[in-house]
């Protein structure tokens, strides 16, 4: 049986009672989350809230209790490669093999599709070519990774995940270290891919304005607990953010400029 983004299964991801402990210390406690197929869920929360741990636990990269279902199938039943064909992870700080060319790096995304002894076939090279094209990296295919800029490198990592052809994309801080233009570009690309291919996206993000503009639902994690979950209008509220981030913010929803979270200093009060 394959894990596929079936339209009849409305939920891409069903998380129940998920907890992670590191050396007896609870990092993530009893998280319950549903992500509809084709949706974009953003996990937000202050530093150390357990966002990355939660992403790793969902991906099955970290021992945890509780259950995770992908389009109705329990993750535990999936083999390693089957799992990797169902969900692709883009880590916050990907390890970059500097001397690899971009196409060699993107080709790594085909790993779960290949048997131990199998070499890559035309289908795999096609997936690489498509991923490079969609992330506007065709020109860089044979360039070395260490010759790319930060934004280009992010796109290369994303291209690797796209070449993986998994229906669920887990992005841990996809915009870290990028300038404002590159942040927008990366998120717009993710959104385009989501719409065009019906991908489901789960991301963590620090920039609440960008998060609020792209994601559909928000899960606020604080001290490892899920303290709020829902659409922007229910989660990204000044008093909620103040309580869990310990920061004073204002939320503006300007007809011309759009929606934004702005930090307030003491004198702005």
């Amino acid at each position: 049986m394959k894990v596929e983004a079936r339209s009849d299964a409305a939920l891409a991801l069903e998380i129940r009672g998920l907890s992670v402990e590191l050396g007896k210390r609870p990092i993530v406690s009893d998280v319950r989350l549903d992500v509809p197929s084709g949706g974009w869920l953003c996990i937000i929360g202050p530093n150390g809230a357990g966002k990355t741990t939660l992403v790793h636990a969902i991906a099955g990269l970290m021992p945890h209790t509780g259950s995770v279902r992908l389009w109705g199938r329990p993750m535990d039943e999936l083999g390693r490669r089957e799992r990797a064909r169902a969900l692709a992870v883009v880590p916050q700080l990907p390890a970059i093999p500097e001397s690899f060319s971009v196409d060699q790096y993107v080709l790594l995304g085909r790993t779960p599709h290949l048997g131990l002894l199998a070499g890559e076939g035309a289908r795999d090279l096609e997936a690489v070519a498509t991923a490079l094209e969609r992330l506007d990296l065709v020109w860089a295919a044979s360039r070395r990774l260490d010759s790319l800029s930060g934004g280009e490198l992010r796109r290369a990592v994303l291209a690797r995940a796209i070449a993986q052809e998994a229906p669920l994309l887990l992005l841990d801080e996809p915009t870290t270290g990028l300038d404002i233009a590159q942040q927008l570009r990366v998120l717009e690309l993710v959104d385009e891919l989501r719409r065009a291919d019906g991908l489901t996206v789960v991301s963590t993000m620090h920039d609440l304005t960008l998060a609020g503009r792209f994601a559909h639902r928000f899960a606020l994690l604080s001290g490892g607990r899920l303290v709020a979950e829902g659409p922007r209008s229910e989660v990204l509220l000044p008093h909620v953010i103040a309580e869990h981030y310990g920061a004073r913010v204002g939320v503006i929803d300007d007809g011309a400029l759009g929606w934004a979270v702005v930090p307030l200093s003491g004198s702005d009060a």
Partner: protein
Amino acid sequence: MSTHASIVSPRNRATVIGVGVLIAAILAGLLIGPVRIGTVNVFRWLFSFGQAPTGMSEQEALILAELRLPRVIVAGLVGASLATSGAAYQAVFRNPLADPYLLGAAAGAGLGATIAVGYGPAGAIDVTVPIAAFVGALVGVGLAYGLGRSNLGGRAGTSLVLAGVAVASFLTAVQTFLQQQRSETLRQVYTWILGRLGTTGWDDVWLALPSVALAVTTLWIVRRLLDVIEVGDVEAQSLGLNVTRLRLVVVLAASLATAAAVAVAGLIGFVGIIVPHTVRLLVGGSYRSVLPLSVLFGASFLIIVDVLARTVAAPAEIPIGVITALVGAPFFVAVLRRNRRAI
């Protein structure tokens, strides 16, 4: 598409160069020696498949068939083994300085072989030495990796190499002690440790070939997966790779190749650093290219070094490990400086 041919197979030009260099190295190994056998004669001998062609003495044919050819083959096998296992250790430990010699694999193999020579049944040395060398190599790498990993602290590279150096020194000290205890086998062990290419014959070829073939084939098969490990354990797992199992298979194969090399040629250092890093400079870091080319260039490198070892100070022979260390130590420093940030 033209760009795609280059992703999955070694860069063609580099492969052609590698094969060319290997052929040149083999010819040099056959041509150069204390007895002058003309170039034309060597070629005629090669194409008459071992029969002494007209105009060549039986003795000259014998020198080629029983001395030079097996020596060239063993040097090639040893060079290929050390270079390939160096590349493989570098991949699975994600450490540019990993090398069979520095990781304690070679010292472990040396200790194992010493025990087999000094304490094992005298009649069965041909069987016990390779097995003991293999076990010793695994113990050496296991100790270095275990010790190096237990105090990582973000500087995994340095601590692995330091642990390897400590393990190598310790195992070498134990080996020296055991040698003293069994002084009657001292000579046998010593000639063996310094590298026995001077007395190489066809029996050494048959001793090394099965292990080397098995190990190098295994590493060649998994070369694609070595690339996946380059993105780190967690990411490699997220791509569906069983990292623990791959690392185990690769360490076993690389240690088998190292043990085979040590069993026929003694302790030769730095080949596993010099060759893979030179290959990386030529074709980039993907193991799809680095691994096959390390086999070719590793074989060529050691054949050429062996030619130097027997000609530079002729009629005396310089131990081959002395030359690789003379080249390798500065090379090691260069790699260390280049990778300062990564280590």
